[in-house]
């Protein structure tokens, strides 16, 4: 199956700092999503972004499908941004629509 690699695996920031999370994938996709998993285990949808750029408040994401990567930007980080960020994709041509997840980036924001 498709390989999804996220970097860095861990990130520690001071409140107010900016960060960039990366997701590389090994095959063409027709769905790419970014999720934030909060400390209670719930997966929060951040972006559905198979291509292009989107922004939502302090967060933005860019996917360059032809080069098979996506970036998630977090600006002016807050302690509530802490948690695990997952990238997940659906391969192009998939009839079932199952998501393949990366291993995630564990983000810790200190006050």
């Amino acid at each position, binding site marked *: 199956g498709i390989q999804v690699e996220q970097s860095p695996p861990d990130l520690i920031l001071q409140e107010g700092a900016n960060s960039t999370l990366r997701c590389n994938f090994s095959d063409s996709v027709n*769905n790419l*999503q970014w999720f934030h998993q909060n400390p*209670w*285990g719930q997966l929060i949808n951040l972006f559905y972004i198979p291509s292009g750029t989107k922004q939502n408040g302090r967060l933005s994401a860019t996917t360059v499908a032809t080069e098979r990567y996506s970036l998630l930007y977090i600006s002016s980080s807050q302690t509530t941004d802490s948690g695990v960020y997952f990238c997940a994709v*659906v391969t192009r041509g998939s009839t079932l*629509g199952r*998501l393949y997840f990366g*291993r995630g980036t564990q983000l810790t924001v200190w006050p």
Partner: protein
Amino acid sequence: SAVISQKPSRDICQRGTSLTIQCQVDSQVTMMFWYRQQPGQSLTLIATANQGSEATYESGFVIDKFPISRPNLTFSTLTVSNMSPEDSSIYLCSVGPLAGGNEQFFGPGTRLTVL
């Protein structure tokens, strides 16, 4: 988006017993999926719950251990059978794509601890 609920939200069970997890969606959806997240790990697909037919299981997961039901387009159950401590995980259902888009959404998860 969709409103997805799961029951129970958490449970502590004894080894050798079984637990059935319910997933309810507030609208009809074509695809429902069950994922497992072991402690400190990423999410792994267990199976796709098909309405009106048997679930489609991923490699390493079998129907005897994880029987799934999908009686209609808004509801599914996952049973974790003959549990062992290695089954301690978060179990999540997801749905999608929804009408008008390809985005998938997750339920709040069931945190299972097996003693």
